[in-house]
């Protein structure tokens, strides 16, 4: 029993990280039809913002030494700032262009951010100790789970609820969804669409920062590529969850985390390296089963 519970927590903790990533991707996709490939690099940027630029092997911790009540807002602000800047300098000029063009632009932007970090910090992964005591396990119903993972799970769910409420119940959410669907028409209705989109970018940037903080606390490592994998999984989660559906993205994030964890547990040792192959096969199966995503309401399908 406790063993199963332990697996559940393991799955939830990986899943919540994916879910948080997926929220950041889904938000921007929802409002701009943009698959923001720079999201992962924004995460890396937030992590490196804790360090002083240097190409030495040893990291010089800088902002990372701030007390939590200062550090968290600072990193969130960095994420939001970079994200908003990306919107103003780059993405704003790609309104109404096709998704492929926007996607490549975001990829190129990510590339620029990555190499910028590389120039400042070198390609060497750096180490940084943030809130180690969060790694200590707490006992829940007999299962032992690191405090950090509890925090991650709770954060992911709290953010989901807050965001869903925000998008469903406030005027801003309505305008955001409208701008996503038809930018020009929304403006003709008086929606200050640029402002709306900018806010979405700020939120997405903060989500990237949140993932960055959790990741760095968990791994103790700052690596240029660190956001990449989560971003990809998040991207997949966004699509199989149902495009534009935040709960869908979160659910799919948890689902992928769960599948990966369960595969790790049940596969025999020889097959374990193929764990991710099973995960991707499951992704394909899900897409064939529900091409519009798990959470897509039927009525949202375009009628003829």
């Amino acid at each position: 029993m406790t063993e199963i519970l332990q697996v559940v927590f393991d799955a939830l903790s990986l899943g919540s990280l994916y879910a948080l990533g997926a929220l950041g991707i889904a938000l921007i996709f929802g409002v701009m039809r943009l698959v923001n490939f720079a999201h992962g690099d924004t995460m890396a940027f937030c992590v490196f913002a804790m360090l002083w630029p240097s190409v030495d092997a040893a990291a010089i911790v800088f902002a990372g030494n701030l007390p939590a009540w200062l550090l968290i807002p600072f990193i969130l602000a960095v994420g939001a700032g970079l994200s908003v800047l990306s919107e103003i300098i780059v993405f704003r000029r790609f309104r109404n262009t096709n998704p492929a063009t926007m996607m490549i632009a975001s990829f190129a932007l990510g590339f620029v951010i990555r190499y910028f970090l590389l120039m400042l910090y070198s390609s060497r992964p750096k180490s940084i100790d943030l809130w180690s005591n969060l790694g200590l396990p707490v006992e829940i119903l007999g299962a032992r789970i690191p405090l950090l993972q509890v925090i991650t799970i709770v954060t992911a769910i709290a953010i989901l609820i807050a965001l869903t409420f925000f998008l469903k119940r406030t005027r801003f959410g309505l305008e955001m969804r409208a701008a996503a669907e038809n930018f020009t028409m929304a403006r003709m209705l008086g929606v200050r669409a640029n402002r709306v989109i900018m806010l979405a970018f700020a939120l997405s940037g903060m989500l990237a920062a949140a993932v960055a903080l959790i990741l760095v606390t968990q791994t103790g490592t700052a690596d240029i590529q660190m956001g990449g994998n989560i971003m990809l999984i998040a991207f997949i989660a966004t699509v199989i969850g149902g495009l534009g559906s935040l709960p869908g993205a979160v659910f799919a994030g948890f689902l992928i985390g769960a599948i990966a964890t369960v595969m790790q547990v049940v596969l025999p040792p020889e097959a374990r390296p193929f764990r991710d192959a099973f995960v991707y096969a499951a992704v394909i199966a899900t897409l064939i089963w529900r091409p519009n995503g798990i959470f897509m309401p039927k009525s949202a399908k375009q009628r003829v």
Partner: protein
Amino acid sequence: MTLLSVNDITVRYGRLTALRGASLTLNEGEILFVTGPNGAGKSTLMKAIAGVVKPVGGSIAFRGETISGRSPEDIARMGFSMVPEGREVFGSLTIEENLRLGIGMRADRDQAARDLEMVYSIFPVLLSRRHQHAGALSGGQQQMLVIGRALMAGPKLIAIDEPSLGLAPKVIDDVYQTLVKLRDTIGLTLLIVEQSATRAKLTGGRMILMRSGEVALEGDARELASSDALKQAYFGYGEHGK
């Protein structure tokens, strides 16, 4: 009092000139029909006023302020409400959400609530399906929705590009009756692209005819609609100056 004046505007799409020096004025509380053959530039004129396409020459003033060059949302917030050609509903939003989008910039929430009721009473089908996605509506129902949405903004001037598109005759009547009533009660000004001269005649007001990106003819809707001049201008036999 002049509400809208369009002075000599020119609009190009690449090499194609869609408007060449078009002008018109519209007074408060007036009805102005715009008619003209296929490709004359009627829709382009609407879009230019709304700020969606940028004229390369000329100027547009609304409520005494120059609006050419302003963003569509600023123009909308000044009280210009537009129903574009071709039913641009937000298919993934519900019907009520579509309608509520229109009231974003209004301060008078009570009046907005009353307007919502009014829209639902003109188009009862929207009320019965208010929580459904707008994308599922039939063509005509979508047209009702966009007209309703434009009214929700509480505009000074409403511009409708072909209101009758896809609507059943009975509904067209309802729409026109409502528009005229609003003109009479709250002084709403109407700018309507309408292919049907008969409809213009029945409603009354002023009318202009566009051809090849210019205003070719102007006059009283009732007189013009029954005159041969309109037909001639429509097909371009003989030029009528403005």
